[in-house]
């Protein structure tokens, strides 16, 4: 969709230049609306104030449990067992982290997870964006069937056993990191989110490119992709997080512990500690494991990379990408 604005025609290079710039804060000059006489510009309005308050409240709503988790991961188990939670890590204890970090091959687990995340995200992003573009393009006799084709797997699934047979017997991918990447490579949900975004790209820009003689592929790679940085960042973030947290596929297909990704190593540790105490043959070491603390520590280890990755992705939430969409 585009609006009629007293605008200028923009060339492609202008757009690219504009796309790199972030919105710069402007000097406040009180302008007044010619119609209502009300001052316009960046002045604190009721809605803005409400927004600040609400967002802060929701942020607290999210932050307090996060704090409980972090504090809990550093609190000694005896204290946690008594109260169930902790808002301040006293008595301080790093037992859980020690257990997690010395519990075997954490270094190889990180390597495995990094490989899976990076390679997986690259594959997913490229296939998602390209497929989504072809659907968004509304090609006659191609896009509609593709839409249905990509949607059906969101509802219909053959289940675990056929997948297991496919990956282990037909494709022989046992003990390969690709067995973790490939089954979850494309998420129909994200494909359609991308489609929705692509459809909102102003047609004028594409048209002017076509007038200039660009072919379909060139348009995709040189115009659409740069303009789609926000959605690509979102997709990349979501996919990366999925791969980072993926442990079930690894559980199914990887039996060599030196190839386990991080999440599976942690899951195994927690699951065994949680259940070990009640099983025959449990040793005293297992009975003394700090279960509460371990679970909190594991959550922290899982969330930390994501909290670090998110601001990085936010840089792509750039305004003004479609500056001055044109319609003469």
């Amino acid at each position: 969709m585009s609006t009629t604005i007293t605008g200028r025609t923009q060339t492609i290079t202008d757009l690219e230049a504009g796309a790199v710039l972030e919105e710069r804060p402007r000097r406040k000059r009180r302008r007044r609306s010619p119609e209502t006489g009300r001052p316009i510009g960046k002045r604190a309005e009721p809605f803005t104030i409400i927004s600040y308050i609400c967002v802060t409240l929701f942020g607290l709503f999210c932050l307090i449990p996060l704090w409980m988790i972090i504090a809990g991961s550093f609190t000694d188990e005896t204290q946690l067992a008594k109260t169930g939670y902790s808002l301040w890590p006293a008595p301080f204890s790093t037992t859980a982290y020690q257990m997690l970090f010395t519990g075997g091959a954490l270094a190889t687990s990180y390597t495995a997870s990094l490989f899976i995340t990076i390679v997986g995200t690259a594959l997913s992003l490229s296939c998602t964006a390209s497929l989504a573009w072809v659907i968004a393009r509304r090609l006659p006799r191609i896009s509609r069937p593709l839409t249905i084709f990509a949607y059906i797997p969101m509802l219909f699934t053959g289940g675990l056993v056929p997948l297991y047979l496919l990956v282990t017997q037909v494709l022989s991918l046992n003990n390969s990191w690709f067995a973790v990447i490939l089954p979850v490579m494309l998420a129909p949900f994200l494909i359609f989110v991308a489609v929705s975004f692509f459809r909102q790209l102003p047609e004028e820009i594409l048209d002017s490119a076509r007038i200039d003689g660009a072919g379909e592929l060139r348009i995709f790679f040189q115009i659409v992709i740069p303009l789609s940085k926000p959605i690509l960042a979102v997709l990349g973030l979501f996919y990366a997080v999925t791969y980072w947290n993926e442990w079930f596929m690894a559980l199914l297909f990887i039996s060599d512990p030196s190839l386990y990704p991080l999440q599976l190593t942690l899951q195994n540790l927690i699951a065994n500690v949680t259940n070990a105490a009640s099983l025959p043959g449990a040793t005293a070491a297992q009975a003394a494991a700090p279960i509460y603390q371990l679970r909190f520590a594991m959550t922290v280890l899982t969330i930390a990379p994501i909290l670090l990755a998110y601001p990085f992705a936010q840089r792509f939430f750039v305004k003004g990408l479609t500056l001055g969409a044109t319609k003469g």
Partner: protein
Amino acid sequence: MQRSAAVAAPKRRKPTSRGTVGLLLLALPGVLWFLIFAYGPMAGLVVAFKDFNISQGIFGSAWNGLDNFKYFLASGDAPRIVLNTVFLNTLFLGASLLAGLLLALMLNEIRGHFYRRFMQSTIFFPYFVSPIIIAIILQVILSGVGGRGGLVNNLLSVVDLPQVNWYTEPGAWPWILTFVKVWQLGGYTSVIFLAAITSIPEEVYEAASIDGASRARMALSVTTPLLLPTMGILIVLGIGRIFFGDFATIYAIVGDNGTLFPTTDVIDTYVFRSLRTIGDFGTTAAIGLFQSVVGFVFVTAAVLVQRRVDRESSIL
């Protein structure tokens, strides 16, 4: 006098045949993936109509018609379970979309650069907390250690209200679970809306502001309509999954606590419990197929409705 945003209906140029080939090549990797990893295993759905025997495998087992479906559909629990599933999913979908939208709109108002980024990270992280941890924290809040206490009950006693044993009161749970879902998904959904907001040209806001619109009015009349396509997609996708209960979260929180089942038992948890030890692959597949087919019917209806309402932004 408001200057309305004239929506131009762009004429899409059909690509040349060379262009089409190029686009088909673009789509090829994705299509291949779907064929191998999505449609390949789907062949296993035939087991829903078979009496599965481990030694004979999926394709060697004997057919048994619709027997596997009888288990769930003929049981007296089916209506209640289905109702719970649909009701809870509707609540979750509506609440998380609304929360995501409001959060995106409000985050858009925040000018402080650092504060905004910080807030965006903060509300995003709950999505990655595993359901087990959510269950633990919820237990602390609602029932405390040993089951007699909890932060909520302490608050209630401060204002002289009677304490409630939350884990034996089924009535409150749809709302408690919705609350949890909003916490979990609010930030996640808002990210999607925020990405859409960033593609709204600043000129639109300037124009509206020249017309004298307050920020609230702008959010309502400018931003929100431009987010409707995204909203539409999310609703349609959500409707397709309406028969699939949120197993991970619900099972982690409710577990085997039978007193809460009247309002929180959904198809997936019901099936999981029933077939935990019996392990009948055929029945599990049958119920999954049932959920898929119903979801498909719903989503087709939703898409048709959307096409009627707003053809341009319809998914199909």
